[in-house]
C-alpha cells in the first residue's frame, strides 16, 4: 500500500477516457502501467467470479431446492415461491456484501443471479437434453434476476445493509412469484386427461417419465394455507419476502466474514518446512 502510494502521481490514463474514470485512477495512485495491469486483473477477476460462482451457486441451489427448480411440474403455487427465493438469496447477498463493502460496486446480487441463470441453462442443455434426452419444457428453470436487480438498486439508493435487507431482501422474495409466473404461465393451461383435470406442467412430468421420481414425491400444496382462496401464491410470496429479510442480513455478514484477509504467523516448524528457516533447531 505504501509503495503504491509512493508511486502515485496524477498522470493521464490511457484506458479510461471519461473524466470520472481518470479521476478514480488518479486518486487511486496507480501509475499508467499499473492501471493497465489492474484492468487485466479486472478481467481475471471477472472470469474467476463468473466460473467459480456460477458453479458454486448452481450447486448450492441444486442441493437445497433442486427439484423445485429442475422440473416444471414441481413449480407449485405454494412452496415454489417460498423455498426458491429463500435459497437463491444466499450467495447473491454474500456477493453483494463483498462487492459493496470492498469496492462500492452495487452489482453483487445481479452478478450472483446472472451467473446462476446462465449455469442453470447450461446444465439443462447438457444434462437434461443432450445426456438424458428430457424435453426442455420439463426442465424450464426459474430466475431470480428481478429480485437481485431490485436488491442492488435498493443498496445503491439507501447505501445501508440493514435497509437493503428490509426492503431489498423483502423485494427479492416477494417478486420471485410474479416475475417467474410471466415466463411460466403457459405451463399452467388446463387439459383433460383420463377424465381428470391436469395442468400442462403435470402432463409434461407425467408423459416423460423420470423412473425414480414417483408422483407422490412432489410437494404440492401440503398444509392448510387455503384461507386466502386462490391467492395462495401471494401469501407465499409475502412470507418468502419476510424470510428473505433475515436471510439477506445473515448472508451479508457471512459474505463479509468470508472476504476478510487474515494472516497467521508461521511457526518455526512451518518455516522450516517451507525452507524459510534451515531447521527447527537453528
Amino acid at each position: 500500500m505504501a509503495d503504491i502510494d509512493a508511486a502515485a502521481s496524477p498522470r493521464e490514463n490511457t484506458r479510461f477516457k471519461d473524466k470520472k474514470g481518470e479521476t478514480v485512477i488518479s486518486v487511486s495512485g496507480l501509475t499508467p502501467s499499473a492501471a493497465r495491469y489492474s484492468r487485466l486483473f479486472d478481467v481475471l477477476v471477472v472470469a474467476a467470479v463468473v466460473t467459480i460462482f456460477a458453479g458454486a451457486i448452481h450447486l448450492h441451489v441444486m442441493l437445497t431446492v433442486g427439484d423445485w427448480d429442475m422440473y416444471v411440474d414441481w413449480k407449485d403455487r405454494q412452496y415454489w415461491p417460498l423455498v426458491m427465493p429463500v435459497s437463491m438469496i444466499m450467495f447473491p447477498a454474500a456477493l453483494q456484501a463483498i462487492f459493496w463493502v470492498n469496492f462500492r460496486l452495487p452489482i453483487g446480487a445481479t452478478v450472483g443471479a446472472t451467473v446462476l441463470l446462465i449455469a442453470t441453462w447450461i446444465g439443462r442443455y447438457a444434462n437434461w437434453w443432450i445426456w438424458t434426452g428430457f424435453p426442455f419444457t420439463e426442465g424450464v428453470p426459474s430466475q431470480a434476476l428481478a429480485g437481485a436487480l431490485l436488491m442492488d438498486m435498493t443498496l445503491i439508493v439507501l447505501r445501508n445493509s440493514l435497509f437493503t435487507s428490509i426492503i431489498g431482501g423483502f423485494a427479492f422474495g416477494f417478486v420471485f412469484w410474479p416475475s417467474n409466473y410471466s415466463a411460466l404461465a403457459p405451463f399452467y393451461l388446463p387439459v383433460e386427461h383420463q377424465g381428470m383435470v391436469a395442468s400442462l406442467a403435470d402432463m409434461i412430468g407425467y408423459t416423460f417419465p423420470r423412473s425414480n421420481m414417483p408422483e407422490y414425491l412432489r410437494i404440492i400444496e401440503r398444509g392448510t394455507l387455503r384461507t386466502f382462496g386462490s391467492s395462495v401464491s401471494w401469501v407465499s410470496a409475502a412470507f418468502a419476502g419476510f424470510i428473505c429479510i433475515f436471510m439477506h442480513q445473515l448472508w451479508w455478514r457471512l459474505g463479509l466474514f468470508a472476504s476478510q484477509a487474515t494472516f497467521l504467523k508461521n511457526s518455526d516448524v512451518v518455516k522450516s518446512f517451507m525452507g524459510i528457516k534451515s531447521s527447527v533447531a537453528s
Partner: protein
Amino acid sequence: MLLKLIKFAAVCVAFIAGVSHAAAHGERAQEPYLRTRTVQFYDVHFSKTDVKVNERFELTGKFRLMQDWPDAVTPPDIVFVSSISPGPTIARIETYLNGEPARQSFARLELGRDYEFRMVLEGRTPGSSHIHPSISIKGSGPLVGPGQWVNISGEAHSFAFPIKTMTGLQIEDLQTFGLVHAVGWHLAWLAVAAAWLSFWLARPLILPRWLVLQKGREDLLISLRDTGAGIIVSAIVLVMVFGGYVRASAEYPYNVPLQSGLNRVAPLPASPAYAEIKIISATYDVPGRSMRLATQITNKGSEPLSIGELTTANIRFLNQSLPVAMANVDPSYPTDLIARTGLKLSSDTPINPGETREVRVEATDAVWELERLVSFLTDVDSKFGGLLLLYAPNGERVIAEMGGPIVPVFTELE
C-alpha cells in the same frame, strides 16, 4: 515427459472407448427381501416389443402385495404405478390401476390382495430400451417388475406429442410448447442485468476502487447519477415484474394449479383360498444354487390341484410336465427370468379336494445367482416369499402365497 503424456492420452482414449451404454437400472441391486416379500408381479404382458417412434404399445399385468410384508419396508400406504426406462425413451400416455386412472398416486393398498395395472406407452427415442413395470411405494422406493427389451425404431426428431387444452388451444408438441415464451423472458431479464453490469464494469474496477475507498473518497465511486440510474432500473424492473404478471394473467385466465392428491381404489375380488400352504422347512443350497422347500399343501377346493409354478422376484420356476402351466407363459415374458431347469416336485400327482400332502419343492437354477438373490442369506431376518400357482383340471388357476424362514446350507445336501 512426452512419453508420460502419450501414456496418459492412451489411458484416456481406452477409458472413453470402453464406456458402454447403460442398459439396466440396477434392479438386481435391490435386496432380495424387497423383491421376494413385497410385490409379486404376474401375468405381465408387453403387447409389442418392436415399435416405431410415436407408436403405442401396452404393458399390462397384475401384482400381489405379500401378506408377510417385511418390517423394514414401509407399507403400501401411498403408491404410484409407473414404468421404468433408461430415461424418457418412451412416453407415458395413460396408466390404470384396476381400471382407475393412475396419473396420481393411490392411498392405502391392501396387503394380501391383488391389483391389475395397464399402461399405454409410446416409443420416443430410437434404440433398445429395457422397460419395467414398477410400483413405487412412499418410504420404500420403486419395486420393479420383470423388464423386457423394447426396440424402438425410427427418427428421434420425428417424435411429437400433440395435445389440446381445455381452452381449445391445439398444441403441436408438448416437448417445445411455451419454451420460446419462457426463454424470451429469461433473455429479457439477462439483458437488463447485462446493461446494469456493463454500466459498472466499464469503469475502473477492482484495484482502483479498493484503493480509492481506502483513501476515503467514496464520493468518487458512487455519484448522484449512479443513484438516479438505480432508480430508473428499479422502475424498469417493477414494470416488467408486475406488467408481465398482469399481462400473463390476462392472456391465460383459466390456468389451474398443479394437480395433486391421492386416489383410492379397491383391490381385485379375492380369489377363494382353495389352497393352503405351510412351509415345514426351507433351505438354500449355496453351492448347488437350489432352493428346497418342504411344504404341506391342503386343497380346500372342490377340484384336484396340480402344482404348476413357483414365482418370486419375477423369476418363474415352471413345472414343465404340466401343459397348462407351460401354456400360462406369455411369449413376451423375458426369457432370462424363466428358470431353464424348471420346478422339481417330490409328488407330481394332483392333490385331491380335502387332501393334505407333504410335497418337496426344488427350484434349482443359476438364475438365483444371476439375479443376485442369494444375498438374502445376509438379511437380518433371513426369510423368503413367493407365489405358488396351482391348476385345476379345467384350467382354473389358484394363486397361493407362501413364505417363511430360510436356512442357508453351505455344503452339498444329501
